[in-house]
């Protein structure tokens, strides 16, 4: 096995302006926020971003005006309302959107994971989602029944960024037995070309291999793994810490205006050299301890 443990800097160096990027997580669970802040600091632009239910990670990139196009099922701030910067970017024409419903996005990821150019669904008849996107959604006839089906193009991105619970230095990432799973991190990992994973904690390989069925991302699929505690902050990593309501509220409030969003980025992204300093900035160990949801396990 190959040692793939590295730093955010090295892991993300290949992600350059113009890249396409799949972002893991769903709603306020495990968006790869630390990695995204690093990308913003490094100045990448013109990204094609794909997501499942995107929140903070997508909106931060939008705040930095780094997104040229987005494709996915949702961008919002869950119980914090609409995604302020993403919304502004779409409304002022800086971000092009391509909407996909859930079965459509699932089909896209599965197609990529299976090395296929498309997979069929029959969800989007009559929906404007299909009408506005003939490039990626097309009708065709079932080779057996002749009925009309819809072909959905595979979701191919240059890079995939996922934030996970725990992994070993070989890139094997495991989830806890009890967890929230309303997301597509595993299908995204299976679909990835170049997969970069951040995890809350690096654990010994010996621990991983005792329960191999908990490995949801095999190291074999991974290009680089980085230990980034609180890597999803200000969102949550289920089973470890909850979303940071104070920080989330501050972000949403300031993002009502372009200037406010810029002041947020200046303070919490550009104003801190790295993730460790970021964590100090948002309150350090004392503040983070209040988010802890571990049950002594």
């Amino acid at each position, binding site marked *: 096995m190959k040692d793939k443990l590295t730093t955010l800097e090295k892991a993300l160096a290949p992600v350059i302006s113009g890249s396409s990027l799949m972002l893991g997580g769903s709603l306020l669970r495990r968006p790869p926020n630390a990695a995204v802040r690093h990308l913003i600091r490094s100045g990448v632009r013109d990204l094609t971003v794909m997501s499942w239910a995107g929140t903070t990670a997508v909106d931060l990139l939008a705040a930095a005006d780094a997104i040229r196009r987005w494709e996915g099922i949702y961008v919002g701030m869950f119980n*914090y309302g609409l995604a302020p910067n993403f919304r502004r970017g779409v409304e002022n024409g800086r971000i092009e959107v391509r909407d996909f419903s859930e*079965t459509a996005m699932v089909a896209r990821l599965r197609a990529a994971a299976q090395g296929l150019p498309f997979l069929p669904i029959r969800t989007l008849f009559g929906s404007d989602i299909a009408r506005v996107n003939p490039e990626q959604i097309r009708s065709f006839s079932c080779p057996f029944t002749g009925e009309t089906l819809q072909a959905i193009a595979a979701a191919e991105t240059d890079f995939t960024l996922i934030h996970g619970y725990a992994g070993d230095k070989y890139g094997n990432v495991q989830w806890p037995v009890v967890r929230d799973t309303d997301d597509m991190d595993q299908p995204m990992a299976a679909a990835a070309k170049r997969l970069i994973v951040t995890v809350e904690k690096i654990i010994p390989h010996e621990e991983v291999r005792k329960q191999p069925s908990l490995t949801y991302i095999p190291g074999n699929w991974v290009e680089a793994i980085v230990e980034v505690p609180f890597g999803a902050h200000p969102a949550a990593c289920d089973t470890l810490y909850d979303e940071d309501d104070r920080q989330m509220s501050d972000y949403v409030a300031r993002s009502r205006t372009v200037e406010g969003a810029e002041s947020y980025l200046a303070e919490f992204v550009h104003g801190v050299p790295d993730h460790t300093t970021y964590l100090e900035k948002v309150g350090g160990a004392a503040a983070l301890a209040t988010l802890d949801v571990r049950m002594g396990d």
Partner: protein
Amino acid sequence: MTSFSTNELIAAYLSRQIRDDDLCFVGVGTNGRAFTLAVGIPLAAVRLAQMRHAPGAAVYWGNLLEPDLSVIPESFTQDAFTRWEAAACPPDTGTKCDMLARRRFDVSFNSAAQLDRFGNMNITAIGDYRAPKVRLVGSLAQPEHFAFVRRPILLMDLDKRSFVERVDFITSAGHLSGGDSRRQAGLGEGGPHLVVTDKAVFDFAEDTRAMRLRSLHPGVTRDEVLSSMGFEPVIPDTIPETTAPNAEELTTIRKTIDPNRILLKV
């Protein structure tokens, strides 16, 4: 006669729409009134149905299949979802998507920014799709619900801005342009079944598939309803009153299902 809130009226009304063994999709909603409509009332309704006439009714919530509705979380932060006990929690959302496409769901509870005469709905964009006045959240699995669920039920407060002649963008295809158009487009049985609002209940006429006033909530007038809509629904000759919750239903909701007023708060 006991007095009751509109939320209680709707919850009790909806519970009577749930049949035994129905699998019901409940979304994960946001805050305030949106939470009450998307999560609170639906959970209360299904729980009431479970306790009264539909013990086999089940909920798919987030990615939890049959979460234990006898113990509703007190707050809905991420950790509450993680710890909520359930019969199953599939490895990824693809399982739920397959269950939708396979038509395993009987009922879904939906809300929208816009809903039109033929039950098409929009949660994607207000105005022009490519240069929208308001960019909304996208689509989630709302197209799936209208495509595959047997009896989707919309929960929305009646409002001229939401009930529009024609949605700006069809996120989920309802009955399209009415009549046979849904089937013509390639969609199967289903599409919006009921629209339950704070003032009245609507269904869709069998022939034209246009929205039709089905009942008025106690104390609400026909004109009050019409003045809150951007189009005129089909109005039957006689309009019944929405059946009020009985004392037993109200007691169960208040004492057992939602004693801390989390679900039916606002």
